[in-house]
């Protein structure tokens, strides 16, 4: 989403009085000249430490501003970062333990090939960078009551939420009976390599099996019967590429309650081209041909839409994009992320998309 606010809090009387001095701005718009983290409408954080983990992965320790309420191990956070002047939002698992002593949150970002945001965070976000945050979220978390034995299957950067679990458990005392099967292409690409090995050494109850897929091939879940014969008795946590998650869902088909997966589905992207089915608000999708603007198509379908100049200059027709992407009819550029405000009068369809419509 585009316009995100931290959980609303009741403004104090002092704050309300201060607003009468700063109207039409908010006091925080002035305070943030000094401290950008002091905001009641935008949750922000400052990068306080950058620690390279592998050639592609970097851990960022981030001091959150007002409004951060902590996280449960395994949860993710949405981070907004400005890359070449443009704000992008991405979701990353938190890799640090619950309730860290320093109050900071950590994410470990692995640069994806062609990944604008992951590449930026992994390699070009120095200490001091201000990022936008959202409260932690996600239900890929350890059961709240003490549980039986655990099995964790991770691959690549899928280790990050599990690392948060291991760190949280290790801070509480000896680790419970757990097996971690982690895959990475080579030894050099194993994120948290040393820490994982150290944990396994310190805690006899934890067994670590690292797999280097370049030489050993990918993990086949059929191997579980030999790698972890009692896998059916364990609470399983799986995080990794879609292929692994799908295989896990099949493997645990008979006891799906035992399986927890973290699945990051990237927002649907347009496959390019023009024309597509566009939904306006909750109405049924409208087929929009390549040459018609989203404004004209919506109006033709009887949707009440704001409009203005109808030539792309006045921004009177913008609507928030919820899903999919749109095509700029002037330049042919296909663009859009969920939450972007798009000018409907000069945007056409490019695959399926959904726009929010004004409620009044």
């Amino acid at each position, binding site marked *: 989403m585009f316009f995100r606010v931290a959980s609303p809090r009741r403004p104090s009387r002092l704050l309300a009085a201060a607003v*009468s001095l700063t109207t*039409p701005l908010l006091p925080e718009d002035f305070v943030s*000249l000094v401290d950008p983290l002091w905001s009641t409408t935008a949750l922000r954080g400052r990068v306080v430490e950058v620690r390279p983990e592998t050639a592609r992965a970097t851990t960022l320790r981030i001091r959150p501003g007002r409004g951060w309420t902590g996280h449960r191990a395994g949860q993710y956070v949405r981070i907004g970062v400005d890359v070449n*002047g443009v*704000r992008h939002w991405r979701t990353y698992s938190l890799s640090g333990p619950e309730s860290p002593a320093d109050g900071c949150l950590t994410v470990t970002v692995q640069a994806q090939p062609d990944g604008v945001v992951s590449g930026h965070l992994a390699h070009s976000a120095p200490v001091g960078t201000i990022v936008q945050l959202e409260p932690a979220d996600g239900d890929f978390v350890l059961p709240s009551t003490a549980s039986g034995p655990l099995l964790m299957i991770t691959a690549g950067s899928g280790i990050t939420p599990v690392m948060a679990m291991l760190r949280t458990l290790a801070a509480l005392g000896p680790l419970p009976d757990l097996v971690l099967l982690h895959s990475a292409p080579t030894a050099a690409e194993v994120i948290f390599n040393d820490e994982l090995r150290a944990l396994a050494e310190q805690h006899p109850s934890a067994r670590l099996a690292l797999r280097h897929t370049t030489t050993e091939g990918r993990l086949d879940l059929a191997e579980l019967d030999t790698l972890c014969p009692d896998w059916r008795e364990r609470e399983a946590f799986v995080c990794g590429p879609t292929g692994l998650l799908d295989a896990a869902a099949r493997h645990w088909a008979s006891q799906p309650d035992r399986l927890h997966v973290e699945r990051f589905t990237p927002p649907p992207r347009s496959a390019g081209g023009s024309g597509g089915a566009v939904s306006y608000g909750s109405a049924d999708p409208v087929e929009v041909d390549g040459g018609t603007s989203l404004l004209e198509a919506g109006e033709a379908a009887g949707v009440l839409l704001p409009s203005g100049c109808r030539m792309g*200059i*006045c*921004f009177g027709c913008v609507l928030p994009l919820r899903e999919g992407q749109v095509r700029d009819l*002037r330049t042919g550029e296909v663009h859009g992320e969920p939450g972007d405000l798009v000018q409907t009068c000069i945007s056409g369809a490019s695959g399926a998309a959904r726009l929010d419509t004004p409620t009044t």
Partner: protein
Amino acid sequence: MTITLPDRVTPAPTDKTTSNKTAERRVHPVPSTPAPEACDLTAAQVEELGRRLDEIRDRVIASRGADDAAYIRRVISTQRKLEIAGRALLFAGILPPAWLAGTTLLSIAKILENMEIGHNVLHGQWDWMRDPKIHSSTWEWDLVSDAKSWKHSHNYMHHTYTNVVGKDRDVGYGILRLSEEQSWRPYYLGNPVYNFLLSLFFQWGVALHDLEVEKVASGEKSKADVWRQIKGIGRKMRRQFTKDYLVFPALAGPFFLPVLAGNATANLVRNIWSHAVIFCGHFPDGTVQFTEEQLEGETRGQWYLRQMLGSANLDGGPLFHLMTGNLSFQIEHHLFPDLPSNRYSEIAPEVRELCAEYGLPYTTGSLGTQYLQVLKKINRLALPPKHVTPRQIG
């Protein structure tokens, strides 16, 4: 002055017979006042000009990036610091030097806030950054007019129908006679006085002009709509008034009056300055007004042409351009209202060259010269036309 633009026939670019036919149609300026004789273009040339302007726009759009984002954040941060400094100094406003310095800083801050920041953010020039704190849909400015109403009357009506008498309400703001196309009434004898008052109370004039009350009589707007808008503007006016004329002076305790006077002066300076800059954008000699008939079937190229002929630039240095909100590049702004303002100076030489190449006027001059011309025009139009010439329509 009125000119006719090429006929409103859009030639299909691939259809040779149509192009040839329209190529014979030429622009014939109507010689009511000194006319841009140079504007003698074929329809095909006008569309070619449009394509070349599109290229300039595409190039700037493709090169927007971190430097531009840093620019607007720097301006915003500077403006806020100036405002804090100005208001702080005014608390010591019992001392004349502090009052003068405080009022000056606050005036500069208010001008920057209004012009380089507010006007341009509300145009969506910075929407591409996707920062909700610097976005046309969330911005509100330090003026009595509320952003929503202003975006309609300015971004839509003024920028789409620029200088079209009867459509673009910036032509006279509903109270002045700024074009021969507006028929004379005895009321207009007060033209210079109305202009003087508008200049002093410009932000109030803009707020009321956003209401478009005359549209109620013509049935284009319902009374309920106007009433809803009045309530919105009323809230805004009350907050603005309270801040500058009650809360800040009251905070100064015994120095209530110096603070009140400083705030009032800063608002006055901003009003006079923005009025001057804005009026120099469309009404000096050489700028052209248009009739509603000329809008019919207007092509992209013709729209560009109207923007160029209807706007005028101001000469000056970088600081001057900043203080005008880069509206000193009014021609470039009207061609590309949504390009970041810091880029207008970069494309201005190219636009000027294009004008020269196509034999179009590129009206520009110093603020003093242009404003004098505007004032003369306002005086001249206060009086009835000396001899009536039948209005010609292209």
